[in-house]
């Protein structure tokens, strides 16, 4: 009875103890199986900072939708949001708009050396830094080792080779449920990453950052788009992938229904988790193929932590970021979620490598990852590209020349806004 009374008293007084600082962290929904890693990281922070409560606001999984949520708060100068996740393509936009707090005093240049150069570069804009990388993502090719071995094939180095192998396996396996290539071809940001990898892998680019001109109308760029339409979608995939984002395309692969799969590094852990995957131990991973005579290219992805310019607790927010990006937490994230840490030293950590042997081979890819061009007008450019890519590949007889021409003109018009910039 007395214990019940004490409990009652605690419940009654608990709200009073809330007279503490709240730090609002806007994040996306982590995968259910590994959510505890993030929970624990936040719990540890609270344990080390008495009187601080981290309130999590969970946004949508898709980067595009998450962007809408975060920018909504920033436009409204919402002082509630302190720390937020930032996709690798946003820093330029948030910096130019004056939404993200420059972190130069907190995060001096020597500290930045411990991280991969590509995300640090993506986090910088006009000489200042606006985010700290948490983990790095690059497009990787996953393949069914068992199927390739069974048909005496070695992992494909070029896209045409991948298509040939997929056709061969599909013809011999005669499994109506099997698909050759699973990736992200829905009209959203992921489509830009996927298509950019084909285009860069054919020696072309999305746009010329120096001359501020779209290059989508170049023959090599159009050739890559045509290849996706005719050789991937129409030949070795099923039409459903035109509506797939990461989770759907990965589910197809982990259910054993896809031979090749393009995804970010986290897919490795999922594909090898017996609770979620039917292809445990049968998966190979390698850099994405290129077109013959060209170099492989992977889109740089990954998430950063940033502080809102309108936060009332920038110092505390920084301590939170410092904690979440520390070696200790990054190691835990790497060990248990399979997310590739942004700190380079962790790739020599034997415990991590033992659990994630794929990191060793991915290291080179991470060093060479291709960031999407940095610009404050990335969103309008991306929307034009999403529209173009989706129209070009979803319609079997699309007029790619005409679509590429008009997408290029639209992009040039947006890029024109950056010319003759008067400095503020």
């Amino acid at each position, binding site marked *: 009875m007395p214990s019940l009374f004490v409990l009652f008293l605690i419940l009654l007084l608990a709200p009073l103890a809330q007279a503490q600082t709240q730090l609002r962290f806007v994040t996306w929904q982590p995968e259910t199986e590994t959510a505890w890693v993030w929970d624990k990281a936040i719990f540890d922070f609270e344990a080390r900072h008495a009187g601080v409560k981290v309130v999590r606001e969970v946004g949508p999984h898709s980067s595009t939708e998450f962007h809408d949520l975060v920018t909504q708060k920033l436009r409204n100068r919402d002082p509630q949001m302190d720390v937020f996740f930032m996709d690798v393509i946003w820093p330029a936009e948030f910096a*130019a708009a004056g939404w993200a707090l420059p972190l130069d005093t907190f995060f001096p240049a020597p500290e930045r050396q411990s991280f991969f150069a590509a995300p640090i570069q993506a986090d910088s804009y006009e000489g200042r830094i606006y985010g700290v990388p948490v983990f790095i993502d690059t497009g990787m090719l996953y393949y069914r080792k068992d199927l390739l071995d069974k048909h005496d094939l070695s992992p494909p180095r070029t896209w045409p080779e991948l298509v040939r192998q997929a056709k061969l396996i599909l013809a011999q396996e005669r499994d*109506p449920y099997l698909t050759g290539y699973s990736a992200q071809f*829905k009209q*959203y940001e992921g489509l830009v990453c996927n298509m950019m990898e084909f285009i860069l892998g054919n020696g072309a680019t999305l746009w010329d950052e120096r001359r501020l001109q779209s290059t989508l109308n170049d023959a090599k760029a159009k050739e890559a788009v045509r290849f996706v339409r005719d050789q991937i979608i129409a030949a070795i995939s099923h039409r*459903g992938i*035109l*509506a797939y984002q990461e989770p759907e395309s990965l589910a197809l692969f982990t259910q054993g229904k896809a031979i090749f799969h393009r995804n970010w590094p986290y897919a490795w852990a999922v594909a090898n988790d017996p609770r979620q995957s039917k292809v445990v131990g049968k998966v190979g991973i390698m850099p994405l193929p290129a077109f013959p005579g060209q170099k492989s290219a992977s889109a740089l992805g990954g998430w950063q932590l940033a502080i809102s310019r309108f936060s009332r607790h920038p110092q505390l927010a920084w301590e939170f970021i410092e904690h979440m990006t520390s070696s200790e937490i990054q190691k835990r994230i790497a060990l248990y979620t399979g997310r590739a840490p942004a700190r380079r030293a962790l790739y020599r950590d034997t415990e991590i490598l033992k659990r994630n042997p794929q990191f060793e081979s991915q290291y080179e890819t991470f060093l060479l990852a291709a960031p999407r061009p940095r610009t*404050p007008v990335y969103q309008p450019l991306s929307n034009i590209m999403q529209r173009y890519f*989706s129209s070009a590949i979803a319609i079997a007889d699309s007029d790619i020349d005409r679509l590429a021409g008009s997408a290029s003109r639209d992009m040039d018009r947006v890029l024109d806004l950056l010319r003759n910039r*008067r400095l503020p």
Partner: protein
Amino acid sequence: MRRSRDPTWRFLLPSFLFVGIFSVYPIFDSFRLSFYRMILTLPWLGQKFVGWENYRDLSTDPVALDSLATSLIFVAVTTPIEVLLGLAMALVLNESFRGRGWLRAIVLIPWAVPTVVSSQMWRFIFNDRYGLFNFLLFGDATQRYWAPLAEPYLALSSIMVADIWKTSSFAALIILAGLQGIPGELYEAASIDGATTWEKFRHITLPLIKPALLLALVFRTIDALKVFDLVFVMTQGGPADTTNVLQFYGYKKSFAEGMIGYGSAIAVVVFLISLILSTLYIRLAGTGLLGKEPQA
């Protein structure tokens, strides 16, 4: 002197304030912003008055024109179906039978479910691997399954189906209210005169529920023109931009791209179209909707 002490205005003031702050002011501010060029991510461009430039750009923007067409097709297909289905449902619900109360409640469920939830549900139903839609069509023959949300020619229809499922019951609710206002004596008199069921429907029910039908039509048209959440959850405007309705395009411009002026111009156009369509309906069907009795 007594007039000024009339308390009426004091009672009305709160509602005027409410409408003023939450409806009139935003509408006028959207109008104002639509005459500016204002891009949030390029603050050094400032907020520049550009007159009709945003509207001129809009009239030559092929994406905007396509999305306008998509919106109009969406309205033209969904509203008549929703009102007709709503009418059918309302007629059934107006009959007296056992369990009518239950049925009335059940019919309203689709409308009561938050749109985001029902959109997510329809996304699952239309899934190309495990969707119920495919299961009903093809059973276990999964290799023949369609991907309605991935096909440019099916995606918009799929969203229409979801919208019709969701909002027909709203139309039914309005029409049912109209039906309940019809005095029973009219039908009794008609029966005595020997009218058939169809004649009763044609000459009593239909004319008397005309205001309710019109109201349902106006509400549904305005809502369908503003359809957003279904697109947001189910397709994000794709594939090949075929579900990029005007409201979603405006949202993308304002919120994702930070082009406040241009986005506002789109919002104003959506507003004007709903205004014109509603006025047109009311003029054409001119009934007591605005308080004026029809000249019989």
